[in-house]
């Protein structure tokens, strides 16, 4: 714990991206989280990714549930619409947003309590619908904002600050998502910005539901010795199993494969996810193999991280719904109302 007032997140230089914006333009208001909170690092990575992607902030909608994690959308992209909903219900709100305007870039930030306890049903069904959005779980194993109770992601044996060990099996969002048929599944660590930024970029580029489970230590309630969600423990057990670079649509693709079996995956918007340093046996497009591989590694006490599974072709909500190409909010009223003559016609049926 440290009590020094935190400066607004700052970035070196005032370099401008293709949208003509500086990193500053992607920032938000000053964080009110505890100094050192993992969530703030994720905020920084998000800012970096948005800057890299040259996104116009006002074309983004950022949503969250309730918790320390739920507060974070206030800390980036102040020029984007934000929506801090109620606890555990952000997935449904986001689904409504996506239904109404499919052209917005949608980002949801949640916590492990928000997503795996109260919100488990909604998260699962958003995965099932393959709603086109980036969904970040800032996973610290506790309910931060309500002062440190174990969440459903707490590992068996992980101890609370008071020294009590958790005895309930954790719900692992990665395995959950794989089982539910998620089209983009990643895990990362708030302390590994290098890994995190390209994953976020790929998640935004992904057309469908991109889930990133990010271990994000809670310095106040879950960063002590016997916790398995501490900085120390996470650093010690983090094993990137696959590396992914993100190549935006504009960049011409030259080299094709850098190793392993995965190579380049072309995304819907023309960008490319370039998998590197992939273990030979690892295929990020084979759901069952990924599941088995990760189970084995986690069984051995490791925390495998990376963009673990990717299917850029899965049908998203609007494919399944057969919606028109543009945003529903842009369809002029004249195309929605059949008019008086048709009403008269319809009423013929009722006479």
């Amino acid at each position, binding site marked *: 714990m440290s009590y020094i007032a935190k400066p607004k997140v700052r970035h070196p230089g005032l370099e401008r991206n293709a949208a003509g914006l500086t990193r500053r333009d992607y920032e938000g208001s000053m964080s009110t989280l505890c100094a050192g909170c993992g969530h703030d690092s994720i905020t920084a990575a998000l800012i970096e990714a948005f800057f890299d992607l040259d996104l116009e902030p006002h074309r983004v909608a950022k949503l969250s549930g309730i918790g320390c994690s739920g507060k974070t959308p206030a800390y980036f992209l102040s020029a984007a619409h*934000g929506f801090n909903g109620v606890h555990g219900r952000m997935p*449904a709100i986001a689904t*409504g947003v996506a239904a109404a305007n499919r052209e917005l870039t949608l980002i949801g930030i949640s916590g492990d309590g928000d997503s795996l306890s109260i919100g488990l049903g909604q998260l699962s*069904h958003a995965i099932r619908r393959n709603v086109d959005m980036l969904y970040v779980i800032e996973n610290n194993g506790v309910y931060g904002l309500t002062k440190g109770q174990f969440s459903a992601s707490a590992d068996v044996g992980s101890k609370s600050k008071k020294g009590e060990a958790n005895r309930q099996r954790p719900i692992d969002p990665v395995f959950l998502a794989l089982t539910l048929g998620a089209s983009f599944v990643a895990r990362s660590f708030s302390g590994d910005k290098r890994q995190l930024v390209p994953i976020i970029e790929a998640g935004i580029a992904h057309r469908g539901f991109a889930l990133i489970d990010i271990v994000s230590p809670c310095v106040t309630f879950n960063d002590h010795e016997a916790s398995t969600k501490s900085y120390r423990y996470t650093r010690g057990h983090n094993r990137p199993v696959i590396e992914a670079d993100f190549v935006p649509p504009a960049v011409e693709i030259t080299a094709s494969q850098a190793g392993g079996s995965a190579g380049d995956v072309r995304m819907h918007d023309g960008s490319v996810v370039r998998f590197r340093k992939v273990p030979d046996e690892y295929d990020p497009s084979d759901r069952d193999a990924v599941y088995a591989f990760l189970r084995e590694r986690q069984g051995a006490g490791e925390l495998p991280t990376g963009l673990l599974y990717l299917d850029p072709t899965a049908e998203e909500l609007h494919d399944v719904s057969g919606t028109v190409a543009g945003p529903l909010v842009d369809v002029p009223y004249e195309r929605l109302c059949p008019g008086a003559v048709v009403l008269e016609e319809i009423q013929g049926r009722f006479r």
Partner: protein
Amino acid sequence: MIQPASRTNDFAIKIATVNGTGSASANSLLLQAVFRMGIPVSGKNLFPSNIQGLPTWYEIRVSGAGHTSRADRFDVMVAMNPATYERDVAEVAPGGWLLYDSSWPLRAELQRPDVTAIGIPLARMCVEQFEASRARILMKNIGYLGALAALLDIEVAVVERLLEESFASKKKLLQSNFEAFRMGFDYVQANVACPLPVRLSRLDALGDAILIDGNTAAALGCVYAGATVAAWYPITPSTSLVDAFSGLCDTYRKDPESGANRFCILQAEDELAAAGMVFGAGWTGARAFTATSGPGISLMNELIGLGYYAEIPGVFFDIQRAGPSTGMPTRTQQADLMSIVYASHGDTRHIALFPADPRECFDFAVRAFDLAERFQTPVFVVSDLDIGMNDWAVPALAWDDDYRPDRGKVLDADALERVATFSRYLDVDGDGVPYRTLPGTHPKGAYFTRGSGHDEHGRYTEDAAGYTAVVDRIARKIAAAAAHVPQPELARVPEARYGLLTIGGCRGAVLEARERLRERGLETSFMRVRGFPFGDDVAAFVAEHERTFVVEQNRDGQLRKLLIAEAGADSARLASVRRYGGLPLAAGEVVEDILRLLTTSVAAIEVSDPHPRSIR
């Protein structure tokens, strides 16, 4: 035996069958036939909450005078379900008729001296006439339709035309239906003196009326209002609203070139999700709605509070059923009034519209979307099973092609370009309604929506003054909506000492009761509230009458309580008439209660307080 007076176009039929046996379509044909003869008619379907094999009833009331609320007495009982013979026989009005299947003898104890039993060997005739076991069961229904046609003088050509329309694409089925109809018709013609003293005779009393259920009409309203996002979770009796919306959109909301949908219907995983989706879409700028019933309203409570406090439009149809809890899913009630008006913890108060029939379902659906966007808040259309699922004869729906949605105070890109700064929750115009922006429009429009404390600029706050400024403005805003919701239906009689005040689908029964009271020399004024918050006219109406009878369909006198607490009505002047057994209201029930209350002392009226505060 009592000889009934001949009553043309003024009687009621009740048909007792087993659900899942095909009686529903026969009953509906009967209803339509009467309707097509230009005679005011209504059908009330009393069906069980299961899929197949349980008793079900259908009530048809024919009233040349236009009284189509639920009948008080049944002149003709079509008793096709042996399991309910006993109570069905008991329910026939003295001097009435009982149709039964005489393939089996009618048990002696089920015969009544004051009721004429008419046996028709439907099962036997069907076995003789049809091969397939399925047809043998289904055709019995068309058989009793034929019998009724003969007995009641239904125009055969009308029924035949209806059958032709129903089976336009299934010629073979049409043939069997014709046969079955004739079978019943001929048998009765040959064996019974036709027509009965209760009979039909073509009228021209319906004008341009249509025969429609409230859920279909509401769905039409959603289409015409320009709703694009529907999020829902199936629940009786609201399901047919979304089904109708879906069907209409499939026809009228396809892009003619691509065939793609200009709408998105989300079958949510539950009602919490449905409400979340509605607010997500509403926040984004779509006209979005859900349809549910009581349990859904309960589940949506938290999100409704978010919509209220974060000021997000959304339209919620509550097709009420009998509560509490799961209650009786296929019975009607008006018992969600409190739940809706005060939905969600903390200080909340919601705009609600109370349609009385399918036509108002259509009109109020459109209005609800306008109000939701105008006042940036969830708006409730409070219907019920009787309105929503039964067929009502109502004047044709009207549409003005000049209608354009009232999107309320939305700043578009141009407007944002011009403003210096944008404060989401500031009362710029002094009317309690702030300006909003939609995501994706313009960088200057950005703001942070939250259900946690916020000030007029949309900033997070825990400060008493900042917080209070916003909640006070919201209170003013909702209060101001009183002038914009549909105003009460009013029929004042200057000299009347008594008033009748009601809501929703009670309208017909109360108006009919009013006529019957007038016939007894008792003049009453009439008011039906159609929207919440109430206007000042409600308390004025109560003040102008010595005593006002509040007629509603719930146990606790919820409307009466709302009138007292929210309209400033004087409780001492409000007597309570309540029926809540789950059936649509009948005029006789209203008359009965009012007369009882009037003939007993004032004390009796106090006893009518739903909650005696001490047990006496």
